[in-house]
């Protein structure tokens, strides 16, 4: 028997499940109210096309991606230096690290009500919660990355007398870990984005998901979820490629 094409072996199960869903929905389900709650894959596809045509989907993607970029960007700008400091200077590092470690177990989503109180409803609040969630992850990852630079490498550079060399040695050594931390930070931002948008945004993928419930058009919810997954995956792949490049030239 000829070997199955790679696409089938990879996606066969997914396709089969979708087919079962569509068939089952069309034949087994008789209560019309079910359509209000569980849309068929075909309905979802149609809804996706409609939302893409009228620009809603693109607008939502742009808004959400913008928020993630801004939040993660802020987190990286602040978090990488802080993480490096924590790993490099023991006493100052401990002072900075201790409060962060205290706060870390509280899921970022739990902060949402407080951020609403402080920043009001709007973009600043969205940015605050995304940046905060990503910050914790970026700091932790950067600390590990910088602390993981082999001391032998550093002392060798130091012995050679070159302070600049220290930088030229430490930074590339830590870079892969920092890249991983940034990637995780962005992933966390996407993770928390939904919660942030649920509570107080007027446009975005999270809003799209919520609208599906509010309007009782669950197809819209699934379209939002799918787009969210796609965006998260795309950014993650892009960052992974970047991480690989950085890892390669060190």
């Amino acid at each position: 028997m000829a070997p199955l094409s790679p696409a089938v072996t990879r996606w066969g199960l997914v396709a089969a499940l979708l087919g079962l869903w569509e068939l089952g929905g069309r034949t087994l389900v008789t209560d019309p109210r079910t359509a209000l709650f569980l849309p068929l894959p075909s309905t979802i596809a149609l809804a996706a096309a409609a939302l893409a045509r009228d620009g809603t989907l693109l607008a939502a993607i742009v808004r959400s991606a913008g928020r993630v970029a801004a939040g993660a960007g802020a987190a990286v700008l602040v978090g990488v230096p802080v993480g490096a400091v924590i790993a490099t200077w023991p006493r100052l590092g401990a002072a900075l690290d201790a409060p962060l470690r205290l706060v870390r177990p509280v899921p970022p989503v739990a902060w949402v009500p407080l951020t609403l109180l402080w920043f009001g409803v709007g973009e600043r609040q969205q940015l605050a919660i995304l940046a905060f969630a990503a910050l914790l992850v970026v700091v932790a990852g950067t600390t590990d990355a910088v602390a993981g630079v082999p001391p032998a490498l550093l002392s060798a550079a130091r012995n050679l007398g070159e302070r600049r060399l220290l930088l030229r040695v430490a930074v590339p050594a830590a870079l892969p870990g920092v890249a991983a931390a940034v990637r995780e930070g962005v992933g966390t931002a996407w993770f928390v984005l939904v919660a942030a948008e649920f509570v107080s945004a007027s446009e975005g993928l999270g809003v799209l998901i919520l609208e599906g419930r509010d309007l009782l058009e669950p197809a819209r919810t699934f379209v939002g979820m799918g787009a969210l997954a796609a965006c998260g995956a795309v950014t993650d792949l892009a960052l992974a490629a970047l991480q690989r490049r950085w890892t390669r030239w060190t």
Partner: protein
Amino acid sequence: MSATERLAGAALGGRRLPGALGIAALLAAWALAAARWPPHVLPGPDVVLRTVLDERALLLHNAARTLWRVALGYGAAVGIGLPLAGLLAGSPLADRQVGSLLTLLRAIPPFAWTPILLLWLGIGDGSAAIIVFLGALFPIVRQARAGFAAVPPALLLAARNLGASPRIYWIDVVLPGAAPMVFSGLRLGWALAWMSVVAAELVGADGGLGQMILDARNLARPDLAIAGMVAIGALAAASEGLLTAAERHTLRWRP
């Protein structure tokens, strides 16, 4: 005292004081900010402490509900995830097919399921537990699968050639080899489980710490909301500590 121990002691002493200072600075900044805002906007640490004490019955009741949901979802994630990881590590076909499905599902933040789950299941423990399950499953499966795959094939071959029973094969050969990565997945899954349960409850559940924080908002009681957050943080940290201790105990045979 050996030189190492003295160094360690000095290092600890050197880090503990600044650590305490850092926390003190955080509390001071909080108290400072709270002094500028009325208590119904930003309560200070003293107000929150009093609320925690006054409302401990409510906090405990809701904490129990949240813990129950986390336990349900996490238990399911472990119960389904570990065998699934074993399957994926063992069968390349399953790995590709199921793996693709998992990759698709993993990309959706668990919290995004809440509206649909509210429609399907309503506000009971089920919805929250499923969100927890979705949050915890993927890291558990991914790490466990990597762990199983990392067991040296030579060991597996040897065990099989020596006629090891399935029980010995799995429990004495595979699991110890995979244990460190499995634990790493369990820990990560636990952290994500906590994030997921709070998010799920914040949208609408029946009781629980997240729900309590939501209600505190509706009643303009930020002190109660912060008390809830403190409770969540404490529970998450304590449970994570337990998990780490269990991991250390189980892996204590490693050098």
